[in-house]
């Protein structure tokens, strides 16, 4: 009888994917669903990619040069995507701009506007500084063409504009670029930390939620953000290099058909050393992230405050597989073992990075969904059922396909950005 | 604290029209009795006298101008809200006489036999 009523009832946001058990307060649903899981995941990738690129630009770890440039470009492709899950989640997406117009400074989410604008400007600036020499050279080449077609005319205009009038590519000018880039990257690291720290603060400061409320939350989020960003960059770097080798061998794409295109041997795949060093940093941050998460769990289990009974049931029983098997097991310990065992290869590292990304995603999932798995009454539960096949706009936006749309977009953007700011440059084309 | 807001919003909320009685609860029976007093005799304050007329007759809105007639809820479910017998001795509920809705004249509206304005069991039809 209850089911019959539900079919005719007006559906409330969250009802489509929430199953309530025992005593939950009437207004409780899982309001923050898969898109709110995607949001910290995507912003984490942004922050992590940036930190990886900064390891080279600021700390001068020369061996990370190629992957650093790649990470910077990828970070820029990820940036607009970070906003997508929020727009898909908002009940009033067209009013999203209100956050920029009347930011309410006591709210963590209000920081979004400032942090993102600042961070966007920093990344854009740093990219310009890195690619300025390339822009100038390409613009000059295109200007020298006698009969440019439409695409080439457009490209000529684009690259001319991108130089922003700074045509000097002498060694001193490039050296200045290098210095400015270092400063930008230096400023960028704390901003990147803030970018993801505030996302952790959004959850950690909600005193009403027994699972979220902990001062460790911002730090856990930052550490796992860096983990995910580094892992993604390693993975994409390896994959892109393999794709380039494939394209060179089969002579697909414009650059491959060119007579002086790099040969398969010259492309040599992902540089082994770069991947090894990057994955070392990955492991350091993995240790940090895991330590903090386990610490949080131990504290809860030891102090056993009022919420412990229901949290214990959620963590140890209902969500045991998601937390201990998927997140900690497959997502943390297994990749760590794969990488730490002697004889680490690029292939093993790549598999490890896939598992790490899965682990970080599960961490976001277990925090966001797990925090809503129990009722505020501590006497009931709410199960989350991810909508697979959408039957209306809401179940698309907050369902599997909405999440996949968000996940796929950075790659689409990267494809286009790569045409303007190629992630892989010949040595003499880049600023540094 | 945390109170920055668009001031005109308060006026917007204040201007929302009220549906239920504008006479206040104490005066509601007097308000209704002005026209309906001779038809409706509420026996004593102790029984149904404490129930505001609008609980069963719906919000007064602008009656008698608009709507001319109020919809009366004569359903069984309305009476069962209070008169389902629940075995709670520590609640005020114990003072309300109740029945088991699954066995007591199922399917029949309560008002067929009981007069809601004079609910005394002695004067029943």
């Amino acid at each position, binding site marked *: *009888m209850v089911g019959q009523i539900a079919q005719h*009832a*007006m559906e*409330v*946001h969250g009802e489509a994917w929430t199953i309530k*058990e*025992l005593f939950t307060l*009437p*207004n409780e649903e899982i*309001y*923050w669903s898969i898109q709110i899981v995607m949001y910290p995941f995507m912003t984490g990738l942004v922050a992590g990619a940036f930190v990886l690129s900064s390891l080279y630009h600021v700390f001068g770890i020369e061996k990370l040069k190629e992957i650093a440039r790649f990470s910077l470009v990828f970070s820029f492709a990820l940036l607009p995507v970070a906003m997508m899950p*929020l727009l898909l989640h908002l*009940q*009033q*997406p067209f*009013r999203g701009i*209100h956050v920029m117009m*009347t930011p309410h400074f006591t*709210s963590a*989410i*209000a920081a*979004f506007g400032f942090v993102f604008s600042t961070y966007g*400007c920093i990344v854009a600036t740093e990219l310009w500084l890195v690619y300025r020499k390339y822009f100038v050279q390409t613009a000059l080449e295109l200007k020298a063409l006698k009969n440019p077609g439409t695409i080439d005319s457009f490209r000529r205009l684009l690259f001319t504009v991108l130089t*922003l009038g700074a045509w000097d590519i002498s060694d001193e000018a490039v050296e200045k670029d290098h210095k400015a880039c270092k400063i930008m990257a230096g400023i960028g690291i704390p901003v990147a930390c803030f970018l993801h720290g505030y996302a952790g603060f959004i959850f950690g400061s*909600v*005193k*009403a939620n027994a699972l979220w409320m902990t001062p460790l939350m911002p730090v856990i989020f930052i550490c796992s953000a860096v983990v995910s960003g580094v892992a993604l960059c390693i993975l994409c770097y390896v994959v892109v290099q393999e794709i380039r080798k494939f394209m060179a061998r089969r002579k697909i794409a414009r650059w491959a058909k060119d007579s002086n295109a790099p040969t398969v041997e010259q492309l040599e795949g992902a540089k082994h050393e770069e991947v090894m060093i990057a994955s070392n940093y990955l492991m350091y941050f993995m240790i940090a992230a895991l330590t903090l998460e386990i610490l949080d769990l131990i504290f809860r289990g030891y102090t056993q405050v009022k919420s412990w009974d229901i949290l214990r049931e959620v963590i140890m029983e209902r969500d045991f597989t998601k937390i201990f098997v998927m997140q900690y097991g497959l997502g943390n310990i297994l990749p760590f073992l794969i990488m730490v065992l002697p004889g680490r290869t690029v292939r093993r590292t790549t598999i490890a990075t896939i598992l790490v990304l899965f682990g970080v995603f599960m961490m976001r999932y277990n925090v966001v969904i797990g925090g809503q798995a129990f009722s505020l*009454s501590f*006497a*009931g539960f709410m199960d989350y059922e991810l909508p697979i096949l959408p039957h209306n706009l809401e179940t698309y936006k907050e369902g599997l396909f909405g999440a996949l749309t968000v996940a796929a977009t950075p790659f689409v953007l990267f494809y286009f950005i790569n045409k303007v700011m190629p992630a892989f440059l010949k040595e003499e084309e880049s600023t540094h | 604290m*945390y*109170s*920055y*807001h*668009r*001031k005109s*919003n*308060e006026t917007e*909320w*204040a201007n*929302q029209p*009220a549906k*239920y009685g*504008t006479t*206040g*609860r104490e005066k509601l029976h007097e308000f209704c009795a002005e026209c309906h007093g001779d038809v409706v005799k509420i026996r004593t304050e102790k029984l149904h006298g404490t*129930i*505001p007329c609008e*609980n069963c007759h719906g*919000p007064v809105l602008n009656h008698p101008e608009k709507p001319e007639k109020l919809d009366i809820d004569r359903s069984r*479910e309305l009476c069962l*809200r*209070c008169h*389902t017998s629940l*075995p*709670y001795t*520590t*609640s*005020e*509920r114990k003072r309300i006489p109740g029945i088991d809705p699954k066995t007591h004249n199922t399917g029949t509206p309560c008002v067929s036999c009981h007069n809601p304005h004079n609910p005394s069991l002695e004067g029943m039809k």
Partner: protein
Amino acid sequence: MERRDFLKQCIMVIAGASVPLSALTLVDPKKVLAANPSIQWAFLVDTTRCVGCGFCVKACKTENDIPFDANVTRTWVERYVYTKDDRRYVDSPKGALNGYTDARIDLGKGEFKEIDKDNVGKAFFVPKLCNHCASPACTQVCPVGATYKADNGVVLVDRKWCIGCGYCIMACPYAARFFHPVLKVADKCTFCFHRLSKGLDSACVNACPFGARKMGNIHDKNDPITQIIMNERVGVLKDEFGTKPQAFYIGLAQEVR
């Protein structure tokens, strides 16, 4: 790049500044003073009088246009039943919109629990609503300032400004807030602000036949509700969060969450 940033910032500032200015109506300070700024509304729930009839929930939904068939409500009544074999059952079928017409406990998912009437120890009903806290967690977290505490103590939501992020709903420890199913913005009990402004009682106070719900001006020492709060033993819900709720309860059992 700096030129571009500067231009971007300028446009943002101009856009941002132009909207709030156009949305505000000019407020006459004399009128504001005349509208009795010293009032602070507080709510008093007497759980010893509540019988679980649910007329308050029905009146609230009618008065405030919350659809009956939507599973959200601005106010609700919970039923607590303790059995003699030391078990506790709590339920709130549709927020008690239709009252309690079944002695069985609604466990959700279409399941019910039969309780032997001889096994029933103590049982009572607890009406709940937005507490209009003095230090509200919800207004603190709103990213756009769409929800606020008005001068008379009522916490309101600006329906035209709310972006529907749901942060206020997550931040409320009392689950008083929800997304309005039609308007798609955050919504909650407003103490019937529109009725208070006309000098009327809130819809739920109006509807309760047993006097379980009352409202008063906590700044007025002579208000009978304030007298009760000052002189009798009253409690509040979840005071460990420091939200300083302004809904007071008589007869609140410790186990009420």
